[in-house]
């Protein structure tokens, strides 16, 4: 194992060096780095050109400059050399100063998209696999093909120029006409009846029920001015938390498991009590308080599972942990919604932002800044999400079908296990193995996709660093970006290999 890791690290470093050489030489010879100065009318033009040539070593050939650059990078890993040197941009800002801020901005964007794409994609893939060759399956397949064929900049421009604009316009006068209610109801009903499947009578009931319910809720939201002053309120909080508890028990343990009911019930109850009793604390919370509360919530959840315990203690702890985090999220969501109105007023009534990653010089507490991040990041996150969402759906669908076709699944069914535990406990885990590879390769694609998204939404992250740098043939920021991307990609590939060995005992790491 140790020798495997050591060998992999050595090979990875060599690959990284070789790839950086290719990148450096290509980027350095991609254009004329002095173009902007040569065209300028400034009286000290020649002095500026000379200064840039000198600081950037432009008099040397690209391969030689790469050697200098590599020497600077080497200082990052050699502790005595006195700190990193990734060169400077044309504005004489050290890349090491620019990178952390840019990375923070991009990480915020990419992590959400990454996690959501995995969770939603795998979830949808499994459902389509369970309803294979149904109307639902065909619909999802068609949509995922469509998403495969949709360039991310198209989605981003569309979201920015169409959705954001129209939603903001809608918020100015938030009133849904009857036609909109009808159409939404029909769409939701149609999707749900496809999802449920079965005989046409059942589908019809589901279609009518869910369609009418959706239309009624929307009508209520429209009439009560929910869109300008959104909130969940005590009733919705109780219903939603109870629903989450129910769903988790139903999926993870089955409805007959009494201890699972108790575990989930404890956490739902705690959340409801917290909702009624902790609002004063929320009002004076900072980001640190929220992190602290989140940790406590998770700890309480896991502890409640451990106390209820029983023969299946690990399962109870999982149920407790997942339930506590999700119901805690509902309570948090409600508190964020309470601040929406004042945020929307502060910002001038057009909350969904299309530019940047935060409103400049916006004060306010953690709730206001939280909503600010949300309104800025939701559209770029969606457009990033759609890049990889379709491939997760396809892969997990085919993976699930493959696993369901295995002999051990037939054995599990034959010995009388309920379908739920066949899928959740036997099939699901083995399906995840090949997904590990996909996740590893997907990280690179997502970080690359951030170039487009950040360019469309004018977010000053890593992609912007690359894009602006390349536009001016300013090699150092481009290489800083490359370094981060390549190291991340290599690290994730490495993790995927280790995960493979951990998940699948047949794979031996040598």
């Amino acid at each position, binding site marked *: 194992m140790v020798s495997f890791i050591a060998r992999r690290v050595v*090979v990875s470093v*060599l*690959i*990284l060096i*070789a*790839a950086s050489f*290719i*990148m450096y030489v*290509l*980027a350095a*010879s*991609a*254009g004329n780095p002095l173009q902007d100065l040569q065209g300028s009318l400034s009286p000290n033009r020649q002095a500026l050109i000379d200064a840039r040539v000198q600081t950037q070593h432009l008099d040397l050939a690209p391969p030689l400059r790469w050697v200098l650059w590599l020497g600077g990078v080497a200082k990052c890993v050699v502790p005595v050399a006195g700190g990193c040197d990734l060169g400077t941009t044309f504005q004489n800002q050290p890349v090491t100063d620019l990178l952390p801020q840019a990375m923070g901005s991009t990480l915020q964007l990419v992590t959400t998209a990454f996690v959501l794409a995995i969770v939603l994609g795998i979830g949808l893939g499994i459902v389509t696999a369970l309803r*294979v*060759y149904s109307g639902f399956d065909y619909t999802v397949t068609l949509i995922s*093909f*469509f998403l*495969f*064929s*949709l*360039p*991310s*900049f*198209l989605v981003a*421009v*569309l979201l920015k*120029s*169409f959705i954001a*604009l129209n939603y903001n316009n809608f918020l100015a006068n938030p009133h849904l006409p009857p036609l909109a209610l009808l159409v939404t109801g029909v769409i939701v009903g149609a999707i749900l009846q496809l999802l449920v499947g079965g005989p046409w009578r059942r589908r019809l009931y589901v279609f009518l029920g869910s369609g009418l319910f959706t239309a009624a809720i929307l009508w209520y939201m429209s009439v009560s001015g929910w869109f300008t002053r959104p909130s969940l309120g005590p009733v919705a909080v109780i219903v939603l938390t109870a629903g989450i508890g129910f769903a988790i028990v139903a999926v993870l343990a089955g409805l007959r498991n009494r201890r699972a009911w108790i575990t989930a019930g404890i956490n739902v109850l705690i959340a409801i009590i917290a909702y009624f009793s902790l609002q004063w604390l929320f009002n004076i919370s900072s980001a640190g308080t929220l992190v602290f509360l989140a940790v406590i919530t998770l700890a309480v959840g896991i502890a409640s599972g451990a106390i209820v315990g029983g023969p299946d203690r690990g399962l109870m702890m999982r149920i407790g942990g997942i339930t506590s985090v999700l119901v805690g999220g509902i309570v948090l969501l409600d508190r964020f919604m309470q601040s929406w109105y004042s945020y929307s007023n502060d910002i001038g009534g057009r909350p969904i932002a299309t530019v940047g990653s935060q409103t400049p010089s916006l004060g306010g507490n953690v709730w206001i800044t939280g909503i600010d991040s949300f309104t800025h990041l939701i559209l770029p996150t969606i457009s990033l999400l759609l890049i990889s969402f379709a491939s997760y759906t396809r892969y997990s669908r085919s993976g699930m*079908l*493959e696993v*369901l*076709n295995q002999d051990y699944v*037939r054995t599990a069914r034959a010995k009388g296990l309920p379908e739920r535990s066949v899928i959740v406990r036997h099939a699901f885990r083995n399906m995840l193995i090949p997904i590990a590879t996909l996740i590893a390769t997907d990280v*690179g*694609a997502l*970080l*690359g*996709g951030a*170039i*487009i998204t950040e*360019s*469309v939404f004018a977010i000053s992250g890593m992609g912007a660093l*690359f*894009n602006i740098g*390349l*536009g001016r*043939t300013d090699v150092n920021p*481009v290489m800083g*970006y*490359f370094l981060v*991307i*390549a190291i991340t*990609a*290599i690290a994730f590939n490495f993790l995927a290999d280790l995960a493979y060995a951990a998940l699948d005992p047949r794979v031996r790491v040598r």
Partner: protein
Amino acid sequence: MSTVQGSPLEPKISSGFDAAERGSGGRGESQGRIVFKRFLKNRVSVVALVVYVAIIVFSISAIGLGPIPGWWHYPYSQLNPQLNQGAPTLSASGFGEHPFGQDRIGRDYFALTMRGIQNSVLVMLVIGVFATVLGVIVGAVAGYFRGWVDAVLMRITDVFIVIPALVIGAVVGKTSNGLGAFGLAALLGLVSWMVIARLVRGEFLTLREREFVEAARVAGASDGRIIFRHILPNAVGVIIVSSTLLIASAILLETAISYLGYGIKSPDSSLGLLIGSNQSAFATRPYLFWWPATFIVLLALCVNFVGDGLRDAFDPQQRRFSIRRTKEVDEVIAGQPLTEVGLPTEKD
């Protein structure tokens, strides 16, 4: 020699035939013909192929190709006076003066879009050819010779695969400044071969252990002959399918790079460039966005569907769960139709 090479069906492929096809006179046909017939059965893919070809033919006939003029009277780079503020004139009654409207400087948007289609298609096909040829050569040599050749070639592949496609694409695109669409495509092709190389190598690693390769070697065939005349024809399915999917991602790559401004540049036209240079006019002239967007999605969707159909045609084993096919197989085997099909237990 010729007997080995001439035997059209390798066991692996022939085992993929379903009983239904074997029963309906599939015997004695060449592999290409069987694949072709299977592809034709997939209606979505056939329609996609027809639409794809139709779009290309339409765009070429409209504005011509190179020096040959087409039937459309406005050249794509000509500045025309703004008619009706550049609004599109396409209607049920005919094309009108500017069917897709005009851009801000008065160029005819129909001609620009057609030119964009031509360039995007050219780029995707050239990327496909370059990347496939390079990938096949690297993969075949690595998989056939194994040992240090394989190690070196695969490490080189790793080096290239570390860099995300869009990143190296943007850098290469900027380098190709002034080379035109073909130069851009050729350079992009030189950095997109890695996936195909890995797949072909995997295929070669298994195929080189087979008896027919052994037979060829015993008969004294050279390495080159074994690689290109014996093994390669058996790997053609993998190659065609993966290069089709590569072509589908190539159009997305090209449009993204042109959108960022590193690909094809004005006054020439590309679908991505059209969207990039007109996105600020979205609120006032949305049609400047919708036309190129429609054609990008249409082209990519068609190629994706064709690729999917080809995959099914070459490797029916992948579709293990086709209920209809399972039915057919069971009907042939058991002679009785299945009424309710759950999860098929029959592995084909």
